[in-house]
């Protein structure tokens, strides 16, 4: 190990990557040999890298996700490791205890996989298809909007507001999702609209 | 009818007149007990030594590798402990120190040069055997105690690391001594011909008893019933 190399790599010498691959042909066997006794095989070898941003706090540290399979090639991609991006000016590769455990967020056992519906009075969720869930939502919205939309206030001023259905926007969705959400919510005339800025 | 002399003879010891005279020295139970102890002691020595010195690690192969040595050794230790406890209960009385033992010991030169005629008459055990008995008793207690302290798989939580360090040291030293005592024990049995038979067949010849443990023989004869069934060496 010598720091010269690591500094070079930090400066992002793309060549290093190439060189490493070139070494691969003869180098890989060596790794196996060397690892046979003690040193674990480097687990990121021949994984796909993807740049992302930590979704937690607003320091917004750069992270690199390592996956088996490449989404860009339309493959199924399974993320096997996430660590800080040293090229990122703010975090310089460092991560906090949350960021350093992002893999377990992606793979959390309580990640949601299917749309669910809980009927009034029921004590459980039941799985539904996306179509049924979304049609149901649109129907519920329209019925409420049609029933409670206020076009003019008592002074006859056009107010076009809908205040019986509200929307609580997230805090980790992208700006693009936020903008799309804004369009959808405002165009429907919703005023009960807030985000997590306050909490 | 027990007298103060009784404790020179063991349960089941008896003499059979004839040509040659035979003398029962160990019952079947005693012999089984002894051999269990012996086997476990050997296994312990071998497995223990494999962890004691790198050069001897090869011995662990006999047990299927270091992991199994680590797993087996303490359990064999437990077997040894209880098995030896059996021997102890059988023989501790007979191994109590006697006046003549001092004299015998004082003439150890004659012992080693086989001038048994110059030695005092000895009961069932001579001082040497008694020393082996008592040292083994002490060492095995030390070994089992220190052994439990370093039996991390089950007892790690009960002692400090410093205590475990001491235990390791004590355990290895005690083991060395035990092995040495064992060597003496085994050698003596080989050197004094006719001894091993006592632990294999359970009896010795009258001559053997007369030569090495005359006092024991006298007492056996004294307490033996007036008539005794003859037995030939042929049996």
């Amino acid at each position, binding site marked *: 190990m010598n720091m010269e190399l690591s500094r070079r790599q930090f400066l992002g010498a793309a060549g290093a990557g190439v060189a490493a691959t070139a070494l691969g042909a003869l180098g890989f066997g060596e790794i196996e040999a060397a690892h046979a006794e003690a040193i674990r095989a480097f687990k990121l070898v021949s994984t796909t890298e993807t740049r992302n941003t930590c979704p937690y706090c607003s320091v917004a540290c750069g992270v690199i996700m390592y996956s088996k399979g490449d989404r860009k090639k339309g493959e199924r991609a399974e993320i096997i490791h996430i660590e800080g991006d040293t090229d990122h000016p703010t975090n310089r590769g460092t991560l906090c*205890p949350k960021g350093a455990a992002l893999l377990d967020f992606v793979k959390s056992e309580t990640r949601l996989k299917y749309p669910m*519906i*809980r009927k009034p009075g029921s004590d459980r969720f039941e799985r539904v298809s996306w179509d049924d869930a979304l049609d149901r939502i649109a129907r519920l919205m329209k019925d409420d909007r049609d029933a409670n939309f206020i076009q003019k206030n008592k002074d006859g*001023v056009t107010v*076009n507001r809908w205040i019986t259905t509200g929307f609580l926007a997230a805090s980790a969705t992208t700006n693009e999702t936020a903008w799309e959400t804004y369009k*959808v919510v405002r*165009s429907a005339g919703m005023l*009960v609209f807030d*985000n*997590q800025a306050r909490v | 009818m027990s007298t103060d002399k009784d404790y020179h003879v063991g349960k089941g010891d008896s003499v059979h007149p004839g040509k040659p005279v035979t003398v029962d020295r160990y019952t079947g139970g005693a012999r089984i007990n002894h051999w269990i102890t012996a086997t476990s002691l050997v296994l312990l020595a071998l497995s223990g030594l494999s962890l004691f010195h790198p050069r001897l690690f090869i011995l662990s192969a006999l047990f299927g590798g270091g992991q199994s040595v680590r797993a087996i050794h303490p359990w064999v230790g437990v077997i040894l402990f209880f098995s030896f406890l059996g021997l102890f209960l059988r023989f501790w009385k007979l191994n109590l120190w006697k006046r003549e033992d001092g004299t015998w010991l004082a003439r150890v030169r004659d012992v080693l040069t086989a001038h048994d005629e110059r030695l005092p008459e000895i009961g069932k055990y001579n001082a040497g055997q008694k020393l082996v008995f008592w040292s083994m008793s002490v060492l095995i207690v030390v070994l089992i105690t220190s052994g439990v302290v370093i039996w991390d798989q089950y007892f790690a939580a009960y002692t400090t690391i410093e205590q475990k360090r001491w235990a390791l040291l004590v355990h290895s030293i005690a083991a060395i001594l035990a092995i040495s005592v064992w060597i003496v024990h085994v050698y003596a049995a080989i050197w004094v011909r006719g001894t091993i038979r006592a632990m294999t067949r359970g009896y010795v010849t009258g001559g053997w008893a007369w030569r090495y443990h005359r006092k024991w023989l006298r007492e056996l004869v004294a307490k033996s019933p007036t008539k005794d069934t003859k037995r030939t060496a042929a049996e």
Partner: protein
Amino acid sequence: MTNSWTDIKNTDLVVIMGGNAAEAHPCGFKWVTEAKANRGARLIVVDPRFTRSASVADLYAPIRQGTDIAFLLGVINYCIQNEKVQWDYVKAFTNASYIVKDGFAYKDGLFTGYDEAKRDYDKSTWDYVIGVDGYAVVDDTLANPRCVWNLLKAHVSVYTPEMVVRICGTPKDKFLKVAEMIGECSSPSKAMTSMYALGWTQHSKGSQNIRAMAMLQLILGNIGVRGGGMNALRGHSNIQGLTDVGLMSNLLPGYLTLPNEKEVDLETYMSTRGFKPLRPNQMSYWQNYRKFFVSFQKAMWGPAATPENDFAYDWLPKLDVSGYDILRAFELMNQGKMTGYFCQGFNPLLAAPNRKKVTESLSKLKYLVTMDPLDTETARFWENHGEFNDVDSSQIQTEVIQLPSTCFAEDEGSLTNSSRWLQWHWPGGTPPGEARTDNWIMAQIHVRLKELYRKEGGAFPDPIVNLDWAYADANEPTAEELAKEINGKALATVYDAADPTKVLAEAGKLVPGFAALRDDGSTSSGCWIYSGCFNENGNNMARRDTSDPDETGTYPKWTFSWPANRRILYNRASADLNGKAWDPSRKVIEWDGAKWAGYDVPDIAPSAKPADVGPFIMNPEGVSRLFSRGMMRDGPFPAHYEPFESPVGNLIAPKVRGNPAARVFAGDFEQFAETASAEFPYAATSYRLTEHFHYWTKHVRVNAVLQPEFFVEISEELAAEKGITKGGWVRVWSKRGSIQAKAVVTKRIKPLICDGKPVHVVGIPLHWGFTGAAKKGFGPNSLTPFVGDANIETPEYKAFLVNIEPIAGPVA
């Protein structure tokens, strides 16, 4: 943040107050460590608890939660009394010399114009004297007793060190040391940075906490300079973005505001916006308001927004109240006035105050829709989890639809961090099961609703059916399409206003930035302040150039920083009236005789002469405000008010309870413990721990391991008094609820002596609930009061009253 995380390395003094950067923003805190290690910067932490930030501080001063204004006005008073003022800066760049209307006064904790019934002010006197020339009257000598500076001097004079100590419980020597260290930063060659977060915002006077420090920073001349600034650490990864894009009841994107129902048409609406300059030569940038508004309307409704229909002005809903924030939403729900509610990645059951009220409110809905990658408590508010969620499902008639969304690793787009950097990220993993992106989900909702209106007609369908939805795939707009829409497009060719021969943007092209936006409908832009993020140069948010000339920490080519890729706001203020840097070693931009140039994009017209044009271009004055005119609901100066639940009365104005201008709903006043309550004697505060992030990471095995179980923190003194043992169980209850927790007994919390009597602090971390990998637990919000900040309604999570007792253990 006015500055950026990386800029903090340039500071000489870091004041962490109202936040806990080391604990909540460790990787940002790195730059504090760098400043300490490389330029000998000092770190001050002022907090009720000895936090992780305090563990590496040079000076820690304890303070009772909710008394920050008293502390800060105390420091301002110290600076004024001890001449620790950067005079040139204050005179040139603040409204210190502006003359205030005669009617304005402050007495007994109230400013002029208070209406107790409305809990609101008539702010007409909170303004400058306007001269015959239509400009504000100023007195550069600061001799006029009615000038802002003299009013401020008088206003803070009551906050003597003695008074601060009585109110805050801070030991006098510690307070004076803090004031002294801060005072040193009035030198132009020294910069102090303020790092704050929800420790300041989550109070009934949160906005004024921040104003108080902002005023101090102006007096020290630390705004706009490298290593200075007001740096809001912010909470979630894109809370800055969601606020910028205006996802709030009363906002339009880019901090434009939604019309209220008095603003019957576009002209009336504009009449109260687009300010004219209050001093000669000033830029008063909001003069461009109409351009941004019209471009927004075009981005919403495209061709359907025409000059004839006031660019679809009427299609925007009009407010009848100040806003429908989360607290009002749950109040309305609780009154049975709401039918449906959507939670897009938000967990109000745990995140909103007074959980009992929240549960009751959700139970009164007809339908609730949640969209989240994780199984939130809110989605299961109807499910019985014993003591952790003791509800009767059969009695709850709310229909709940839970939609699985993708997480960061599986979607694409930009997030805006607290440095105002818009950073693009790429998807690297395949979503689990049938999880879909939020873009797809929102599109589906719109498309299906629109379809129903097309088929069935119904209440005023126009804004829905005419919503501009020209995406390649109407079912799932791509992040790129949306980003371009946010940046803005030239619908007709746009020419330079100064030189009509010069084309700024060809028709159909993306606009280069907001300077190209027009108010005639020839441009569109979803969020003007983001304009420039994705222009004809490409996706600037995806830039990864790490160059940083002279290592100033600017990183001008890394992603995109709003506005206009500017890294330090008000950076013109880093230079004096001649355009030279106050501190040559801290140069950001300088006037080279013809234009402004330097490391950063000038926050001023490049040709604006330094002596003529003030640095605070968004203000019609061109200067910053020590006196905020009518901009704040609760006063043009901050004043000390106790929390609504307080262990001691208001020593400044005994008659005033809480913030007199804060909104309190009818039912909620009864739910406050009275001041110095014997029933609820302890001052509680809620906060985050470094091992967890809000209510997400309890779903993350590793973080659950690092901090597995809910606990509260108390001092050794209180523990002894109550017979509470380390690691033992306690019950903590307020007037609104009760929780059970393990007790962490620590030296890091000490009783504070306030006005002669000890105040015990009870610390209550959040993070636990009844779903996820960690042990089931409660959160502080079963206890917190249902009241918010007077200006922006952030709930008062940081200061409330509780009682505590040891218990055998939770009843299973």
